[in-house]
């Protein structure tokens, strides 16, 4: 059974017909052609498929597309604005935190969410927040450096949502919002 959903993908509203059991990962990769989001395990073990739903890092391999109807979805393709890299992307390149690159999109989305909520994280904050994203190449040290370095740099990304106040209620899911 198919359903129409409306999601805002990287700033652009899309109306999509999706199967009721379609995973967000597959809708993004196959229907939207956003192949930057990676399949690593399909069962939430590795974090390679991480995208942001209304700013929160979410495993798209465990998320039904119909469940994000009305939501803002940001993928790795939505990080750079008008060809200008996000400071986090630049920091990842500056610290050589990218090797094979397969974990990179998920790492970026998880780390961006951390930095938007916690602009000056400690090293331990980074490790706690990102331990669900596996990487086999780097041993993580360069990724930790990249996140701390990005936090240090002046000026945040234009697209990043304002960090919610501590204790502020999470935005509700599912209610369509106008663009």
């Amino acid at each position, binding site marked *: 059974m198919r359903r129409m959903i409306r999601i805002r993908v990287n700033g652009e509203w899309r109306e999509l017909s999706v199967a009721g059991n379609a995973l967000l990962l597959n809708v993004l*990769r*196959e229907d939207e*052609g*956003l*192949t*930057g*989001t*990676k*399949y*690593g*395990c*399909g*069962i939430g*073990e*590795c974090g*390679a498929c991480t995208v942001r739903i209304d700013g929160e890092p979410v495993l798209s391999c465990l998320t039904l597309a119909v469940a994000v109807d009305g939501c803002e979805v940001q*993928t*790795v*393709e939505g*990080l*750079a604005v008008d060809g200008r*890299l996000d400071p986090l*992307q630049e920091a*990842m*390149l*500056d*610290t*050589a*935190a*990218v*090797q*094979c*690159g*397969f*974990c*990179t*999109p998920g790492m*970026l989305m998880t780390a961006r969410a951390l930095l938007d909520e916690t602009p000056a994280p400690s*090293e331990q904050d*980074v*490790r*706690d927040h*990102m*331990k*669900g*994203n*596996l*990487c*086999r*190449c*780097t*041993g*993580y*040290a*360069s*990724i*930790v*450096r990249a996140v701390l370095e990005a936090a240090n740099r002046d000026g945040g990304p234009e697209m990043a949502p304002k960090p919610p106040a501590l204790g502020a209620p999470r935005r509700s899911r599912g209610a369509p919002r106008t663009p």
Partner: protein
Amino acid sequence: MSRRPMNAIGRSAWRRDGVAKVTGAETYASDVVLPRMWHARVLRSPYAHARIESIDTSGAEALGAVCLTFADVPKVKYNERIVSTPPYLYRDRYVLADKARHVGEAIAAVAAPTEALAERALRALKVEYEVLEPLVEPARAMRPGAEPIHATVRLADAEVPIEGNIAVARTIELGDVGAGFAEAAVVLEREYVTSRIYHAQMETKSVVCRPEPDGGITVWPTTQSIHNTRQLLGEIYGLPLHKVNVKRVAIGGTFGSSIQMNSVIPICVGLALKARRPVKLVTTREEDLYDHVRYQTTIGLRLGVTRDGRLTAGHMRVLADIGGHNIQAYPLLSVMAGWWASLYRLPAMKYEGRAVYTNKTPSCAMQGFGNPQVSFAVESLMDELAEALAMDPIEFKLRNYVGLGGTFWGQGPSVQSIIRSDGAPELLRVGAEKIGWSARPAAGSATGRYRRGVGMARGFHTSSAGAPKPGEVIDYTGALVKINEDGSVDVVHAMMDHGGGTLDAIAKIVAEELGVPADRVGISPVDTRTTVYDVVTHATRGVYAGGAAAQRAARRAKAILLDYATRVLGIEADALVIEPDAALGQGVIHCPAVPDKRITVGALAKLCQTNSWGSIAAVESLRPVHCPPAFVTYFVEVEVDTETGAVTTTRAAIGSDCGTVVNPDLARGQLEGGLSKGAGYALYEDARWDAESGELLSRGFWIDSKVPAMSESPPLAGLETFFATTWEPTGPFGAKGIGEAATNPCAAAYANALANALGIRFRELPITPEKILAALQAAR
């Protein structure tokens, strides 16, 4: 070759594929989408050992799927890793199995318009098995009268019988071992057991194949070698090689698991040819877990030493569990002997290796290819011997190690060369200073709940499989370098970059040789039709061999360029130099003695084109004739919680002798990644099998293989990497390898650190909290 100041080498810069990788634009095999493309799924054996009685595909075909079974595939027995020379290639498999030899073995495959329909079709396949006794453990497989897992295998042009499920055995004896042990004052003999860990590369094995109108195929695979994949597909499907085009796409990690042509690649080709349309096959993580693991080994090691700390003799017995197929057991047994012979000078040595078939996932190379196993045993026992002699392990090792002028076995006994650069003493000295070696506690002296200890282990990996004469292993590579009409450069090289930065290093080597800015050297997208042969990115040969071939091609292109410059400038080519000009963004050809005579590389290249003088391009191939060791030294400090058995890495100092450091930031990344994988091997990771059913105890859950996460990596402040100041005279601009060396001694360093912290020796990997608690209990 001179040690002049360098412009490109040794400078960190954004990797060439970096922007693509941080923006999601990079293309991996699973990202390839083609018009009319169908999707494939593979039916895998639920039994560890079973004959296939029948396969009924009618249900799947009724759903519109195209099916592939053993009956459909060419009856060509092949070995998926054509790196060994033909006399040493043990061929024991078909595209789809004639018999199930491990849980997860590919029995049949289907293709359908969508993956969901393919999955439904897969479930409609009906297979009847005759279940055989699962021979999951080596002891059971070697028991007299056990069912042969393979009755025969193909070697060269003959079918040879397999006795007792021993796939291959190798014995090497040098010197008088009996006399050597008789001379020893101290002889220690120990048994070490290493685990069968999963590569855990982020990308599962994937492939897309498109049949071409001319009867050929185009293939986008996960692979470490596009050319070997091409040659194998040509051989299996009887296609001339000019009609087999294998494309290089980015690979999401591999660590050895794609040296061989991955089992799904020829399956996908078979489906695409039968369906007459493009087919994509992306394996699930569970399928991938059943596809490849590191070789599990049991190593018996005996070493004799004089009172003054000189090794006199050694005896090593290796039993390797290779699983259901022999991917590379013969070279494994060879290289393990070589790593051992090259660590420390042994006047007499006996090596006995056996590789046994079992009904488990086939083993293959994984970062270090037998070296982490050997280094774990040797470096553990050397530490113990030093303790028995009351010598500092560093002094004991320096007294015996194979260094400058010694003979290094880079890939078993047939690949040997003389060591011409040796940073091992420097690495030991600097590492000892960084970790505070002299202040480490006496072994077992720590008390209280949390106990710290410091351990050290050293080792190396080869740089390439180069040797003066072709032996058992192929090492051959080549490159095309061409200079464009604006002074920029294209490098056309078939080598794969697994993420370590091999292709960036190659670009820098070309830039350095030509005298152009590094950012004006591009790496061309390639396939097998547009490149000369490169064997495979393995054996830590990317920079050393691949870079050397590119350097050779660049040197010839430069000679062509200077020849034309002579025409324009009227200056002898030998008097001309090319230097990068940052403001102009290209190289400038000039003669320092005649300052007014100069022309940019781009202007000259354009003149060559407009005047029809000729292209400035060169293609060169080479076989390296040396295999220099890339030394690595690990110092680690651990803290053990004696109530939980948990081990924390508090500090690590990792030193590498990779000769000239080409990509400094990526070289550091190799060492940090090596530590992570080595720590996982030492402390956490395992892929355990049910001894009765032959299933993974993890049931296909990746988390259960306990790959280190970010929370396990040591604090940044405690992590130091450093490089020896060496120059390898046979390498491109003094460089040798780093990648596999980066992890090899790591597990031994942990075992030695735990011995220092607790006074207990652990000889079985992984050294889990459970084992630590049990040992503490027993020691009480």
